[in-house]
């Protein structure tokens, strides 16, 4: 095979078919991976959709180049492997071909550049004046979210209304972190000493949160620095703003009341704010005013439930290595009181 005309045709067709099947299989696996909870390929905001459109063109180009180079490599490998009686052609090159294949990559990158630069210019515009303003602050290893116009502060869960631009100012209290909600916005770093900005207009409200995660290596618990974004209909968002602006739900049961006292006695108040509890005004740790209404604790490490809250309080580093909250060596009695108190902070 290979020496005859039909043998050569078989090699070429076979290689093209094999490479096409490979390319198709890879494409299927890509499509399958796109359909996952933290996907980077299914946009849910105007800006993420623009980026995805540019990405799509680049992705298809990449697929074409992949197919072409793999197919040619395979064909040449099979066609020109040594055979008795075959001799190698002797030539040093071909200037016309050099020009052609210098132009091919030039054309490809120009095709890439156009949607890229238009997406950059679109996403780097100033956000509209009526955008919801949010200040996102990176801490080792959790996210703080402030709504300066609404006077709200929360942690690890960002709530935004659908259809309205959200303008996020990015800051860091310590090292470099990165704000990345794959479906809503590509990442922008949170840089100590600098103020970065990004904005996005969510297009799809849904009950389940958009998953997000710190994308810049920031120390021992980088893997555990996650957050969630809730995109809600405007009315739901307004309701959330109201309840979040309110003071903490005052403890009603005896045990929860005892928990509030314990919260002060154990020194928790030094680092955490609980609005409505005058003693608790610390700002080093996350604001806990509505801790009980959050879905996770420890910046998305575990679900928020009584067992996990207890585990966390008993030894934070056990749940999240390096967590800056000290292990307070709380007694079982103290834990019994604190858990219902914290759970009740709705």
């Amino acid at each position, binding site marked *: 095979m290979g020496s005859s005309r039909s043998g050569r045709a078989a090699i070429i067709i076979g290689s093209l078919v094999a490479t096409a099947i490979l390319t198709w299989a890879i494409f299927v696996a890509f499509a399958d*991976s796109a359909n*996952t909870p933290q*996907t980077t390929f299914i946009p849910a905001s105007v800006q993420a959709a623009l980026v995805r459109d540019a990405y799509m063109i*680049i992705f298809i180009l990449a697929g074409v180049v992949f197919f072409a180079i793999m197919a040619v490599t395979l064909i040449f490998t099979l066609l*020109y492997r040594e055979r008795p009686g075959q001799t190698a052609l002797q030539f*040093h090159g071909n200037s016309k071909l050099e020009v052609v294949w210098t132009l091919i990559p030039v054309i490809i990158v120009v095709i890439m*550049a156009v949607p890229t630069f238009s997406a950059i210019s679109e996403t780097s515009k100033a956000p509209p004046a009526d955008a919801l303003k949010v200040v996102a602050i990176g801490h080792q290893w959790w996210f703080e979210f402030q709504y300066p116009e609404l006077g709200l502060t929360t942690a690890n869960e960002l709530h935004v209304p659908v259809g309205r631009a959200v303008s996020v100012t990015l800051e860091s209290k310590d090292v470099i972190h990165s704000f990345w909600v794959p479906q809503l916005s590509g*990442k922008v770093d949170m840089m100590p000493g600098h103020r970065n900005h990004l904005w996005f207009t969510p297009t799809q409200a849904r009950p389940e949160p958009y998953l997000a995660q710190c994308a810049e*290596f920031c120390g021992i618990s*980088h893997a555990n620095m996650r957050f969630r974004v809730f995109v809600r209909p405007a009315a739901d968002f307004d309701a959330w703003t109201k309840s979040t602006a309110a003071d903490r739900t005052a403890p009603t049961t005896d045990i929860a009341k005892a928990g509030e006292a314990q919260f002060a006695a154990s020194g928790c108040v030094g680092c955490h704010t609980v609005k409505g509890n005058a003693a608790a005004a610390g700002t080093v740790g996350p604001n806990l005013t509505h801790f009980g209404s959050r879905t996770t604790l420890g910046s998305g490490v575990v679900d928020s439930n009584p067992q996990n809250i207890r585990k966390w309080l008993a030894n934070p580093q056990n749940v999240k290595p390096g967590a800056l909250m000290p292990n307070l060596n709380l007694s079982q009695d103290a834990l019994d009181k604190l858990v219902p108190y914290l759970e009740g902070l709705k």
Partner: protein
Amino acid sequence: MATAVGALAHTEEHSGLWSWLTTVDHKKIGALYGITGFLFFLLGGAEAVAIRTQLAVPNGTVVDAARFNELFTMHALTMIFLAIMPMGAAFFNYFIPLQIGARDVAFPRLNALSYWVFLSGAVILTSSFFLGGAPDGGWFAYVPLTGKQYSPGTGLDFYVVGLMVLGLSSLLASLNFAVTIINMRAPGMTLMRMPVYMWIALVVAFLLILSLPVLTVGLIQLLFDRKFGTNFFTPGSGGDPILWQHIFWIFGHPEVYVLILPAMGIVSEVLPVMSRKPLFGYSAIVFASASIGVLGFGVWAHHMFTTGLGTVPQVVFSASTMAIGVPTGIKIFNWLGTMYGGNIRFVTATYFAVAFIATFTIGGISGVMHASPSVDAQHQDSYFVVAHLHYVLFGGAIMGIFSGIFYWFPKMTGRLLDEATGKLTFWLMFVGLNLTFFPMHFLGLAGMPRRIYTYDAGLGWETWNFVATIGAYTIAASVLVFVVNFLMTMRKPRTAPDNPWDGATLEWATSSPPPEHDFDVIPPVHDRDPLWYMRDHNIAMPAPPEHQHIHMPPPSYFPLIMGLGVAMMAIGVLSTFAITALGIVVVIYSTWGWVLEPTD
């Protein structure tokens, strides 16, 4: 005067420990670089296997978070500075004089010093594991995380000092290589008749000469921030963490080409020889390599697209990054052009070289993809980038190095590696690398960030992480098979012919392995492929004159002593400055002895 400093007798022995410690022979130094680099390749591989074992399943418990961060940091540092660079330097050392028809490099003792300084840096960096913890801030060591406040341990000091020492070694070696290539070519070997591999050695030398000083400046600043409380990179005190990123990547991106260009050079040697035809588009490949070298200095900020550079820098660095894809594309087409119409001998070296085209192309494609800042905002610091860089550095650099090992092994040792075992190595490695690194594209698309020691179930990351881990073990098996092949082959007699592949370049004109003086007679060069020209025109190698005295530089122990002095200077920074002072004395003493050493 000379006898006053030369307290120890020079050895005239050609084997034994003392001959290796005092050698100035570029071939022995090349072998030292190669063996050392390969041992560190095994260490870096072991670190990779540990990482992949931890990530095989969600919420893995094989290593803890702190150890994991050390492992991924040291995996990168080991592979880049202690494995790929020295293995590249091993071939440069061995083959620069042989390919240009010289008897040694321009500065043989400086060459030995480069190796001893490299070994000091490698040992210092790796010893951190046993001396208070390895660096754990990533190979890029972004401040403020790596400043004293957030990394109070000694790991980052080992990083700073280790990299400074290693940088010194590469700088000395690069100056030596550049001078050698420019000045010591055989008669008739004009620049445009040099093997492509020599062109690439020259480009790499200049990349290192121009980029390492920048890194060294940054490292000194970081060291001062950490040791003496300066504020080069401290936000809030007038410093700026972005400055470190610029400095690091102005070194860091040319460094990528330092790692990949030598592999491109090896493939540009292997493909024409095995295809039995001249390299397609020699000048195009030469100019492409040179322009990669130049453009390589103008793309660094694409590592910083997400740092808030602003629109204009994003567009500029995006355009320059896309532009650097063009010469890379030209090379790929020319390698395919070299295969076209050939009568290709498929030995193990060819397998690795052809597979290099395929796997490096995958890394090249994904590289051009995130030249788009918009796409990069999704790719940056995700597993997509991990896939990309490993296709370039494993699919590219390592595949190229293995091709070179199989291609040049007979020349270096007089023995041919076993082909059947070699092909087993190839297939295991080829399958293993694709199993390990291709799924990482899918993981990146599914939003998995890099450098995380753990992940939860339910994010659609389980399958491909598990597959990647199986791939890592497959690669480990392939390397093990190679080690067995190496050890078995080294026990066999030296039966390899001088030119087993009908090679075209001058290293094949001498014996396998070459004599200490490389060539009995320096061969004349008439053409780009000198040995093929002589073969086709029935020109015999000129016979050596009956009585000739070839003067070779004598062995010297001063490079070793100076290397120890440099090591002491570095160790002093990590412990007490008194040792640094002592190291300076040793360096001055050895300089004195070096200068006054008799040359025969």
